[in-house]
């Protein structure tokens, strides 16, 4: 149980929730959220969008029953959290290039912030792609060294990766695949995968993802993988 501090729409269909939470949380990790009894049955995996001073922030898109219920919760009410779960992004060595598509930008903000804190002299460039309208771009602007925005187009048309950069991408699988494709083979590309999840902790084998090294669990071994590991065929 966590107390909601704020929960508001930041754009049509996109909600930002802040809850009180303390503990170690890595960028790229996620929580299982619920605020209902049996309808829907399962909890919903949502990435960490930001974490600071006992305040944990989620950025989520309302797509169905679960996120709809979450979006209606008022400040001071409770939400059940399980987590943090998953591996999270690795420590970035070198410069950082993040590529987010739609709600896939959610985990990238905390990653970027954390990177900048640990690497004050590191360079961080950001590509954000949206279908119709953009959101949260200001918060990326405030921290990144460069932000490229694309609305309605194909983000990888713009993308140019420098030799010094580690690429981290989150968004629709097709987008992540093409990011991996246009990035020179010398650069590391990390992707954050999605899968339908039941347990979120590695017990049900429902979120299995086939990789170069055999089956991996998105919830426990991921959600972050090297692109070559998951896009290997």
């Amino acid at each position: 149980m966590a107390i909601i501090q704020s929960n508001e729409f930041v754009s049509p269909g996109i909600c930002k929730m802040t809850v009180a939470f303390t503990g170690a949380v890595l960028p790229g990790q996620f929580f299982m959220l619920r605020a209902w009894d049996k309808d829907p049955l399962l909890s919903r995996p949502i990435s960490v969008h930001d974490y600071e001073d006992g305040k944990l922030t989620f950025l989520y898109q309302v797509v169905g029953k679960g996120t709809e219920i979450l979006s209606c919760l008022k400040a001071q009410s409770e939400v059940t959290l399980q987590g943090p779960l998953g591996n999270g992004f690795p420590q970035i060595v070198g410069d950082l290039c993040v590529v987010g598509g739609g709600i896939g930008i959610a985990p990238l903000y905390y990653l970027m912030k954390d990177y900048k804190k640990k690497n004050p002299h590191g360079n961080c460039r950001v590509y954000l792609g949206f279908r119709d309208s953009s959101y949260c771009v200001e918060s990326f602007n405030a921290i990144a060294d460069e932000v490229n925005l694309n609305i309605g187009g194909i983000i990888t048309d713009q993308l140019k990766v420098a030799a010094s950069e580690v690429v981290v991408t989150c968004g629709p699988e097709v987008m992540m695949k093409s990011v991996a494709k246009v990035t020179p083979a010398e650069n590391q590309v990390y992707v954050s995968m999605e899968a339908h999840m039941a347990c979120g902790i590695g017990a049900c084998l429902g979120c299995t993802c086939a990789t170069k090294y055999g089956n991996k669990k998105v919830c426990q071994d991921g959600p972050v993988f090297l692109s070559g590991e998951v896009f290997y065929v």
Partner: protein
Amino acid sequence: MSKQLETKFNEILFKNPVVPASGTFGFGREYEAYYDLEKLGGLCSKGLTLAPQSGNTGIRLWETPAGLMNSIGLENPGIDAFIENEWPHLKSLDTVTIVNVGGKDEESYLKAIEKLNAIDVKLIELNISCPNVKAGGMAYGMTAETAGDITKKVVAISNHPVMVKLSPNGDSVAEIAVACEASGAQGISLINTIQGMAIDYKKKVVVFDNLYAGLSGPAVKPIALRMTHQVCQAVNIPIMAMGGISTWEDALEFIMAGATCIQIGTMNFINPLAPIEIIEGLEVYCEKEGLSNISEIRGIV
């Protein structure tokens, strides 16, 4: 801990009748972050097969009203890897570890059982009811004849007591249970998941690569309770019942219907502490009702 929940399943002593179900609890490790596994009556391993299996492709989970469909397809590391990597840890725990075994044909069942003869398992759960793969054995679980036949062969070579896990998808469960009992089964567990189907109307396709999948969770509870009652009326060996149990009240109903132990499946995903809360709820119930042991209300209806 009080003795009010102590339960004997034949000669096997369970601290309490609560056991996480096969396939919903991994090999226990993931839940150790949430509680001490030794609080459990027992635990049941993921379904194991002789050879490792990578499971089904495509979407493996789909939510339904108060239910969950899964098509994991018995992904598992195989018996050898289990014995090497998981058994040492499980063995060290002061709780009853049940090993769930699936197979694709008689030979693979029997070879798996033989390998398990080498370790000191307390109870084998013979899975003849996984609807998601041929290797799950559901074909064996559909009729009394085939179920009785495989049970007899397994019991003949197993060093360990064998509890047969029945399918709700075939002939009358009571008839199948009777055949298993007659073939030497030392217990019955039920129900495995109920075969269901999901269609993604937006994409105009079947959701699961394997066409049908297995339904579990609260939605199936009334059906599981009825089948449990039917089987408890039909046989004299102990029953380990499951299907949609989500609270201690649900657990109690299955015990009132005649179950000796109960298993918790899907609910582990919804609340990792569910088994512990159910144990505590049953303890409080015994206290309030002044029962010296939970067995006093077993089969009361």
